[in-house]
């Protein structure tokens, strides 16, 4: 009896916390599937339909793709993908050098590197704009990807994790004649999968969510990313809340779809370590 009560309480608690987390997006989802006039009619005064997609009307979804939202999605996807792949290589290599190798000026360089993450693109948007304009990269994918590639936070993260791996492994491999790239790729990368996934997620989310920099670094409709397109929705189609919600739901579900397989990967890690143990 006590056991059943505690199970009941536990589910109640989880459900309460969970619904707070999910409520805004669920409401946006329900509202995106409604005719425009119905959305605020349902919330004030409150009626249970506010949280149900009823009467069902999927037109908002068709409408946003007619207005070119698909291309913004493609842009965001491409920019994020390029940033993650190139970013992992650039920052991973730097993190490895800081964690494992010894060379003159290491501490100064590392301090300088970490310092740069205190000034992200938002803080230095104006001078950064000047630099990118002089490179002729305004309104290009390079202008969206390259300025954020090397990142103090990511390098710091890699260094933290690489430093936890016993140096004896690298020293032994070195004595066996392995090159540093081999050591990085064959020893450090396999042992640091959680760090690599964390870093990849960090880069992906920062890039997928970036708003201020894409807003000022791109001008044409052709280069517009999702977050900027959404802001445009609000301004151009002021009252079309169902379309804004539809676009919000799509651009929120995509990162989750990328995260879910990785969640499975986390669980695999646990299984792996318990088998080895």
């Amino acid at each position, binding site marked *: 009896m006590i056991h059943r009560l505690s199970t009941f309480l536990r*589910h109640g608690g989880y*459900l309460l*916390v969970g*619904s707070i*987390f*999910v409520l*805004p*997006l669920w*409401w*946006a989802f329900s509202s995106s599937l409604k005719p425009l006039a119905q959305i605020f009619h349902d*919330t*004030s005064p*409150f009626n249970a339909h506010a949280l149900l997609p009823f009467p069902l009307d999927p037109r908002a979804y068709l409408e946003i793709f007619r207005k070119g939202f698909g291309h913004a999605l493609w842009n965001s996807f491409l920019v994020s993908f390029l940033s993650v792949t190139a970013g992992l*290589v*650039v920052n991973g*290599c*730097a993190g490895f*050098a*800081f964690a494992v190798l*010894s*060379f003159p000026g*290491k501490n100064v360089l590392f301090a300088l*590197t970490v310092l*740069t*993450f*205190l000034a992200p693109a*938002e*803080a*230095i948007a*104006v*001078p950064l704009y000047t*630099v990118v304009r002089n490179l002729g990269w305004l309104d290009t994918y390079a202008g969206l990807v*390259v*300025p954020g*590639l*090397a990142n103090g*936070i990511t390098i710091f*993260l890699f260094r933290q994790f690489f430093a936890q791996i016993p140096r004896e492994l690298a*020293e032994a491999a070195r004595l066996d004649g392995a090159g*540093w790239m081999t050591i990085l790729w064959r020893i450090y990368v396999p042992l640091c999968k*959680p760090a690599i*996934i*964390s870093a990849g997620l960090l880069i992906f989310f920062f890039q997928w969510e970036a*708003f*201020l920099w894409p807003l000022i670094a791109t001008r044409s409709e052709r280069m517009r990313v999702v*977050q900027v397109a*959404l802001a445009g929705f609000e301004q151009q189609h002021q009252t079309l809340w169902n379309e*804004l919600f539809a676009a919000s739901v799509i*651009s*929120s*579900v995509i*990162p*989750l779809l990328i*995260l879910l397989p990785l*969640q499975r990967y*986390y669980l695999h*890690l*646990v299984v792996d*370590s318990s088998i080895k*143990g």
Partner: protein
Amino acid sequence: MKLKGSVPAAFVLLLPALICLAVFRLYPIALAAWGSFCQESFEEAGRIIFVGLQNYADVLGDPLFWKSLWVTLKLNAVINPIQVVLALLLTVMVNQRFRGIAFYRLLLFVPIGVSLPIACVIWRLMLDPQSGLINSLLGQIGIDKQRFLIDEHQALWSVMAIATWKGVSFWMIFLWAGLQAIPSELYEAARLDGATAATRFFYITLPLLKRTLLFVLVTDTSVNFLLFVPMFLLTRGGPSYSTNVLMYESYRSGFIYGEMGRALAIMMVLILLVSITVVIQFYCLRQKESS
């Protein structure tokens, strides 16, 4: 032990990152720092002249700057501890194993997908004093309509709530990854020794999670000191400057009033502030690690 070939390898491995950082971070920071000592000439529009510490003197003599500094510190003193502690508690919640946990995990991780601009738009509608969902729900349990974002005393708290809703699940991924890395044998051994859940948390989870926690705390702090989107999209720094953080004051000075020198001087103060805070956090957590 001194390893052969360290220096050339380090050079090759570091080069791409250092070039990127130099061109897209350090050089712009230097430009910003230089700009904070300059002003547009009054006599000749568009001509930039060096004015020394004038911008800093102006800023430090401006009550609005001190008000913005106070708002920034208040926001960060509350939001950073709350986000990190909440993220930690929820990570422990998510890490439990029982039937149905996968479903709750899904619910708790949903805000990760929602970008801050989107979160702001949705929450603004939900917090609308007249027709918002939250006031309607509060009405169901007999609580009066609240003004939230348009109330001088509630706006900053509303912004914090929105940023926390959005931020906590994001930081949970990192803490969860850290938690997964703790060998389960430790917990089993502790359980066999009769350690309670609280003991296991304080003596195993916390110490072994310290690196991840430090990372989350430092990153979260730098993000929140530069929090800009909610003020930009929702409150415009108001009402009565109650959400006018330094980041927004800098934006207003530069982009609305065209005083770029003042904007950059404020930004320099802000960067200094973040650096000091992060160094203090590092120092305190390192200290504990060695003790």
